[in-house]
């Protein structure tokens, strides 16, 4: 066909993925319970995450009022580390695959 240029087809390796792979993300969730004291939970958030008092209290209240708070979104290794640290303080914390 006049006026058209046939472009060479690029060779694509089967199974290759040109997109950079992203490490799956996880969320760390702290769940409500009737026994841990509110000032204690605030203190734990400050110690484990290095948060200021205001942010720690906001998440503590979220746990108390909504039953849970997502406190971190991070790689599996980091999330696992934070769950271990929170459970050393006996907080009810788990990690879940991020939606």
């Amino acid at each position, binding site marked *: 066909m006049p006026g058209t240029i046939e472009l060479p087809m690029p060779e694509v390796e089967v199974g290759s993925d040109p997109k950079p792979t992203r490490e799956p993300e996880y969320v760390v*969730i702290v*769940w409500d319970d*009737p*026994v*841990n*004291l509110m*000032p*204690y939970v605030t*203190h734990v958030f400050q*110690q484990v995450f290095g948060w200021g008092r205001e942010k720690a209290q906001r998440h503590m209240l979220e746990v108390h009022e909504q039953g849970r708070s997502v406190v971190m979104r991070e790689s599996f290794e980091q999330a*696992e580390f934070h*769950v*271990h640290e929170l*459970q*050393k*303080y*006996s907080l009810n914390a*788990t*990690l*879940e*695959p991020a939606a």
Partner: protein
Amino acid sequence: MRLLRRDDSGASWLLTPGERELLLALFSRPEGPRSSARLSRTSEDLDARARSELVGELEGHRAHVRARLEAMFRTMHEVPASPVAEPGAASPGSASEPGWILPLSAHDRECLLQALNERRLGAWEALGRPDPPEIPDTLSPASPDFLDWWTLVIASRFQGRILSGEFQE
């Protein structure tokens, strides 16, 4: 329990002889039951894979906390009543009454808070997880639950005192 001194290296607390007895009695009680640790609620696979590591780490940590507690209680020392302020003592007060001084580094403070919370949770588990955890009006000293309620209340008071003394003044 009264905060005597606080600086970057830690704090010193003054306990009355009665408070010291309570603290030692609290930790001389057997540890209560513990709910099993879980890493994930929604992923059984994830939970099964990583739970044993979590359980192992928590057990190791509890052993470390127990060792720190023993060391803390060994360093507690008696002070006689004195009308003179302790040199270098800062607000809110100095040791002017007889009692026991409990020095707490920041790390030991965290260990003590964790140990107190373990006691609280153990007692709460032993009581059947009451919600809310409030002492029943009908509780008598002869009740089999009495010591667990005692543990819950006393551990909460020490925990609250440390938190309010060091962080909210």
